[in-house]
């Protein structure tokens, strides 16, 4: 019998049964919630008179809508205040653990789960946010869900699911200087396409992934959904165990040893059978930047923007050029920017801020650029300040903010104006994503964003490394 993947193992151990529809009823070990996608789910519970049978397996925070400058209540934005209040009332009424604005554990849901050690190998994890794939970095079967599914998890701790296929993605060799985890995942999405992962879980491996720290692995897994894959994961290893040891929700002593035994047991077997395998080499990956309106429309920094006819979908490329306003064939290098955003669940962790600060240190943000650094969590902010990163950023001319999702999706006051062009460490360059229907987003690594901020245009960060 062929070996099994991590996905197979977790799927089997969490299967409650097969439903009359043919779907699997899957137990959800951890449920993370936030203010945006949950209010109607709690309303549905109330209307049906249902309780939360496993309420100690749900944790809540506020991230999407929170202002990152003035945080006094009530918020200036009445809608933001009402939605935050709705969550506060719901967690109070149903007895859900809540990391609110006054908690040191507040932050982007995909940053705080790992930081607290709630995210662990061998569990199933659901959250009403597509970037829940982030948690797969730990060997967790983690995926985003809609509001009706949030209701189902609250009411039953299970979901009706169909099993995915598994594609192994090997990244061999080593990355060059100035090439980051963000470049790896942008490269993968460019090669496999934004819909290429439909029906698959992505298992990332190979020498490059093996050498990555947990924060880098989270960046890779985070954007699995941008490649169409609901789930992305890395098999747990010593790097994973070292990261988890001593965190708030991780057991200690003999229980920690038992946990490691379990975590090791869920990793894919050496002879695991995959539905598909692809291989890329680290040396072929360069600093990568998106030029278009989806995360698959990217080029290496040294390349020119492609011609629409080079694309399988020329009409889609034309639509992208129409919005972005570039000429096909123009160089990416030197593209002007107005805004620089460092943060998000993709790249708002301590390692990301360190990488950006290394570039910004002792230099000045270009006078034409509005530059923001938004830590992914209150804890990341605190640790960064202990290292003096905030001083480096502030002296360079970056604004240093409170934790939240901020300009990744611009549900708070941090937005692009008009046709502004943003160099952004976030995950989506969709039309209107950063708050202006005419705004333009260039996705890149945090170090590349910092370098772009200094120059007022896209540059090759390797000149600084």
């Amino acid at each position: 019998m062929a070996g099994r993947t991590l996905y197979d193992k977790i799927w089997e151990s969490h299967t409650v049964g097969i439903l009359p529809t043919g779907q699997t009823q899957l137990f959800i070990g951890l449920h993370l919630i936030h203010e945006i996608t949950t209010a109607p789910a709690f309303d549905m519970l109330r209307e049906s008179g249902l309780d939360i049978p496993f309420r100690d397996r749900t944790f809540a925070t506020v991230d999407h809508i929170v202002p990152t400058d003035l945080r006094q209540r009530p918020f200036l934005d009445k809608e933001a205040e009402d939605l935050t209040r709705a969550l506060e009332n719901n967690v109070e009424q149903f007895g859900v653990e809540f990391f609110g604005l006054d908690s040191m554990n507040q932050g982007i849901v995909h940053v705080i789960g790992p930081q607290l050690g709630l995210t662990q190998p061998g569990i199933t994890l659901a959250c009403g946010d597509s970037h829940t794939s982030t948690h797969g970095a730990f060997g967790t079967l983690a995926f985003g869900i809609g509001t009706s599914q949030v209701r189902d998890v609250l009411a039953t701790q299970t979901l009706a699911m169909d099993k995915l296929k598994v594609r192994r993605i090997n990244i061999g060799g080593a990355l060059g200087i100035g090439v980051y985890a963000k470049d790896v995942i942008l490269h993968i999405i460019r090669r496999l396409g934004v819909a290429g992962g439909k029906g698959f879980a992505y298992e990332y491996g190979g020498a490059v992934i093996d050498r990555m720290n947990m924060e880098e692995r989270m960046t890779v897994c985070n954007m699995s959904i941008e490649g169409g894959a609901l789930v992305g994961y890395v098999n747990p290893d010593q790097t994973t165990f070292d990261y988890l040891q001593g965190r708030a929700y991780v057991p200690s002593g003999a229980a920690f040893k038992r946990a490691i035994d379990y975590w090791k047991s869920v990793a894919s077997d050496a002879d695991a059978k995959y539905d598909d395998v692809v291989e890329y080499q680290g040396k072929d990956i360069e600093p990568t930047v998106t030029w278009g309106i989806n995360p698959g429309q990217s080029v290496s920094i040294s390349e020119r923007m492609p011609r629409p006819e080079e694309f399988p979908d020329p009409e889609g490329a034309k639509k992208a050029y129409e919005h972005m306003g570039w000429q096909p064939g123009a160089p990416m290098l030197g593209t002007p920017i107005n805004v620089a955003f460092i943060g998000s669940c993709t790249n708002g962790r301590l390692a990301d801020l360190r990488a950006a600060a290394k570039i910004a240190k002792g230099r000045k943000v270009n006078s034409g650029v509005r530059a923001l650094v938004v830590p992914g969590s209150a804890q990341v902010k605190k640790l960064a300040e202990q290292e003096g990163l905030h001083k480096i950023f502030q002296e360079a001319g970056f604004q240093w903010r409170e934790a939240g999702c901020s300009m990744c999706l611009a549900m708070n006051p941090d937005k692009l104006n008009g046709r502004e062009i943003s160099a952004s460490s976030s995950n989506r360059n969709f039309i209107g994503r950063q708050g202006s229907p005419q705004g333009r987003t260039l996705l890149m690594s945090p170090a590349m964003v910092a370098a772009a901020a200094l120059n007022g245009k896209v540059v090759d960060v390797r000149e600084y490394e």
Partner: protein
Amino acid sequence: MSEIVKITRVGGTAVPIRGNDIDTDRIIPARYLKEVTFARMGEYPFFDERYDGSGKKKDHPFNDPEYKDASILFVNKNFGCGSSREHAPQALYRFGIKAIVGESFAAIFAGNCTMMGLPAVTVGAGEIDQLVRSVEENPRTEYSLDLQSKTLSYGNHRIAIDLPETYRIALTTGSWDSTALLRANLEQVKKTAAKLPYMSGFSS
């Protein structure tokens, strides 16, 4: 829970939205996710593509009187990619869309549609071109989607449609609103949970 509603057939006129990879930020901009309920989502689908900054209507199929009251939406590839926001299918549904026919759908979007009782079904690329042309030529064309026979009919035409069999069963048997189905197994859920070592904090 709510009463069982079996969805076997959707009939009516159609509206086409051309283009691949139409993401949920385009279907509903994030600023509308600040509302506490889905009640007003029907006012917002494709808002920034339908209105300019001053609120003036732009050229868009959802603004076109020819397609008024359409209940079936024709789309291309990877429709609904990006954010998991259920607000996107809620906006389409509350606008009046009761079925979506496309070349392919993003995973979370298709799941959200099914859980709301909104069938999202696929046809081949050539067939979607044929359907889009048919509705552009005559917006009053009546289409009939039948989930039992897995066909879409109009005039003398009959096209095979596809969707995951589990979704088809959920819709046609009225178990798409899955909470009651899942909740019925709560004892088995507790047994499954008890076997997972992390549920007891690895205490043994």
